[in-house]
């Protein structure tokens, strides 16, 4: 009974983490697109993006702890930090570990943004586009023998949302009105590559 509770909590927290992470990615893209509406200021998009990212870590924590503590899976704490070190579903769990660690790096650099500067922060933040799909694949892979309809529908919905958001981002182009004239001017006055 206890084991089943742990098992369902692991799966439930994992599903919630995926939904939250999807929302975080979509909000991040909307933020870059500078979307704004009546009664929806831009700081709301970025504020939600940050807060949901922190909430994702909470549910991820629950997902990881219940999975490790569950006697059925025989996972040690090491599997949470070293990818592909479990006997149980080695490959798919390993992906989960990777996704988690990428996310951790992204969140920690975001918290330390004032110290590391914008350029370094931005470089690490691009890893989101690795962390999210790896999480999706981890979810599908670890749940293949017990894949239920609702989890399938959920996963498809999350993928659709992110694909649509990326579609918008790619077709929208830069939202910085100075991007083009600045690049043109710099090309005109550049005489060699910066050191």
């Amino acid at each position: 009974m206890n084991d089943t509770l742990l098992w369902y909590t692991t799966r439930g927290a994992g599903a919630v983490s995926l939904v939250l992470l999807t929302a975080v990615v979509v909000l991040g893209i909307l933020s870059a697109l500078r979307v704004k509406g009546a009664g929806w200021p831009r700081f709301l998009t970025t504020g939600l993006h940050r807060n949901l990212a922190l909430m994702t870590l909470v549910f991820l924590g629950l997902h990881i702890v219940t999975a490790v503590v569950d006697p059925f899976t025989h996972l040690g704490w090491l599997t949470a930090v070293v990818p592909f070190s479990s006997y149980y579903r080695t490959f798919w769990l390993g992906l989960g570990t990777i996704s988690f660690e990428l996310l951790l790096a992204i969140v920690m650099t975001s918290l330390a943004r004032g110290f590391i500067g914008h350029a370094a922060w931005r470089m690490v933040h691009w890893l989101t586009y690795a962390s999210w799909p790896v999480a999706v694949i981890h979810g599908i892979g670890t749940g293949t023998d017990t894949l239920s309809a609702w989890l399938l529908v959920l996963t498809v919905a999350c993928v659709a949302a992110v694909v649509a958001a990326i579609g918008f981002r790619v077709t929208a182009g830069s939202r910085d009105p100075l991007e083009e004239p600045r690049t043109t001017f710099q090309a005109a006055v550049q005489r060699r590559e910066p050191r």
Partner: protein
Amino acid sequence: MTRLLAGRDLALGAEGLAEHLQRLGPLPAAGPSLTEALVRSGLAGSGGAAYPTGLKWRSVAAESNGTAVVIVNGAEGEPRSLKDRLLMTTRPHLILDGAFLAAKAVRAKQVVLYIGEEHRASQDSMARALAERTGEERRLVRTVSAPARYVAGASSAAVHLVDEGIATPTTAPPSAHERGVAGAPTLVQNVETLAQVALVARNGSPTGTLLVTVAGGVFRPGVLEIQAQTTVAEAVELAGGASEPPHGVLLGGYFGTWVKAANAWELPLDHDALRARGLTLGCGVIGVLPGSRCVVCEVAGIMRYLASESSAQCGPCFFGLRALADACTRIAERGTDPADLQRLQRWSAEVSGRGACHHPDGAVMFLQSALATFPDDFAGHRPHLRRAA
């Protein structure tokens, strides 16, 4: 009392090293005493900002521990200014003397000649002069071409190009004298200022003259070396006189200030005297606007130029100057609309001071000066009828 342009006839080209040394004697030693002499003399820079040269040298020397850099600014990006090119093509050794004296005084390990990439004659002249110098001096020097854009002549843009290969202005702090090329304290000095330094080192004081470029509606436009306090009228006379009764005079180039003709003649061509009157000498361009040209159309054209020369790094400058130029052009081409005049005031107030460099400030000062000096022209401008070509 010597002059910058004393010596051989200017039409004969550059003065060689032998002639230069024969006329003026050897290059004196440099050191703190030269810096103090500059401070005492009150010599101001000739690049447009008129910052006290001695104080600048003190700041750089204080920060320098042998790694400082001297940038000899011969970019001359101001379209109507010719004085720096004249100096480079006729008295290059005065400039080089000043540069090496500066290098000694601030303990620099490099001297960079920053010359406009389209100023071929100047580049050739400076290169030939450099070849005549000692090996020790030549080893200090590096020549870099300044892109032919207005902002490329600004100090931070010069530092940026020498340091990282792109001539865009940068945010200060830090300013060049604190951290410039490769993080070292950098002295950026106009070529005319360095020429003056070469003479201060030999004579103990500056020449008491300055170079101005008279442009526009005069019979003999070009560079003049004038005594300090010479009036605008005297300078225009030396340039052959006005070709027709002018509207007014633009003093200081495109970042300068306008004066109605009647009020301009008695003005002394001196930085402090003009500043006291709310005007500026800037880079020494005296632009005489002929009566047959339209003030409004002229101002609109210059605003369009200044807007197109924004480096597009800051929104208020790029969009603000464009909006101001568009409004001026509308007034010029379609006639005055009170809404446009209001926009000019509002945007001027909003744009000034909100860029990383002084480009938007200079443009706004130019425009505000035009509006204040020629209010009737702007208030009642009508589009000009086009004549068949």
